């Protein structure tokens, strides 16, 4: 079973890494409940 299954997730992505919506899609496909997702710019 996925370690994210049934977990509540806050996803903070990086524009030059993995953006928020991509993390959200992965986490949800693993059974997580994503309550907040955002992409940040660190440059």
């Amino acid at each position: 079973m996925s370690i994210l299954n049934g977990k509540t997730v806050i996803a903070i992505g990086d524009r030059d890494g993995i953006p928020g919506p991509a993390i959200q899609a992965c986490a949800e496909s693993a059974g997580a409940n994503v309550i907040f997702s955002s992409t940040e710019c660190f440059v």
Partner: protein
Amino acid sequence: MNSVVKGASYVLVHAPDMLVKNGTTQTTERIVNPNSEYLKTLGKHLRSYDDAVAYLPNQVYIGNLDPVELRKHEQPWYGTKFEDAARYGRFGEIMPQAEFYFLIQACDEFELVRLEKGFVGEYKDAFFASPVVTDLIRNRIHDGVDAEQLEKILKEDGEGLYLGDRLVGAVKKAHDVDLALSSHVLLENLVSKASHVLSLLHLVDKAGISPAEVDYVIDCSEEACGDMNQRGGGNFAKASAEIAGFSNATGIDTRGFCASPVHALTIAASLVKAGTYKNVVVSAGGSTAKLGMNGKDHIKKDMPLVEDVIGGFAVWIGEDDGKNPIIDLDHVGRHTVGTGSSPQAVITSLVSDPLQKAGLKITDIDIYSPEMQNPDCTKPAGAGDVPVANLKMIAALGVKQGILERKDINDFVEKHGVPGFAPTQGHIPSGVPFIGYGREALLNGAVNRIMIVGKGSLFLGRLTNLFDGVSFMMLPNEGKVEETGKASGEELRKIVAESLRGFAKSLLSEDQDE
């Protein structure tokens, strides 16, 4: 006719006191935590002008040290001084803060900027001695005012210009209630304009374009100028062209966060290719807000505040001369609304799709220039090495396509990229810092194809959750100047004769049918 890159300039301004007074990390800290340790220790981590000049990435930026040479020096680079460091390089210069204040004043058309009399006397000769400052600019410098007048401006919501603790200038607000014309916004805009002007002056000096030859300027920075009725009305481009003496030019501002320079370059290349203009300059000044942006992390790591420079650049796009590198407008990469945000989708749209259309593979590009942030700025702040991260994503797509082995990813990064060397000034590091070196490498045959990639964080404006990206290839010029839209007399005769022959044939066949 193709569009070519005829030259480029790159400038930095060392601005330690603007970092303290105007960088948003510092201004925010003064509001939310005015007695913080960070603010107390900030001053001890500022670099001297000489240290900023001797800093390896800064010397690379202005053209004194090839970017690949950075690999010979262990990171972080702030502990190493470049022995042959100089203020001027073959692409531009690192201007000291005091002299830059004069340029800000020269860029002010509305008597909003005042410099202190003693300061003017002390530093005017140094500013006037600059090899790129023109008489037009020298003649705009005022004698200066008494210190009391500067204090008065500050009391009336003005912004100060400092050398250490010494108040040497001030910027007035231009309206009582309009925040778009507040002294804070005006200072940011005047800094952007002045560093833009410095880039244009160096383009004239280094690339040899005559100011009168420039038809069009595209400013691709990230500031907005206007008033409360049109906050982003513009136009930095024409305002900067005026001070640089580009009397025959008009221009426009393009915006797209950090992706704006690459958008602007494709627009410029298209304008030239279409024959609309002969010479277009894509250029931008830098940002005060981003000075010291990652300062808290830098101080935590007990390192100097390396985000102490304002950046600027200018690129001259002109008609095909049979010599200079071509911008390939037939194979432009773009991240569209529907592309999606997974790294695979992003790199496919920016890199793989245009290459496929051109019948090329990821390994056919000799050098990729994606976001070129200096890792000394980003690694201590936890953002990693941004150019390397982008190169790794390109390599990973190559692995997925079966072009590369997984074990070859690091070799690919080394072979097809260069270390990041640009200050974290938003649009400044976005693809364009390598155009100067890349143009030279294409001219001397060291490389065959370069891809410039820019990305922009649109989501920061809170109008969309999307980000953006665009890319284009720079190719060597094979010397065949292709004339479009103009046919010779003989060609015209041939075309008319063929049409008449066709017409006669059709008449003949109609007669036979009857």
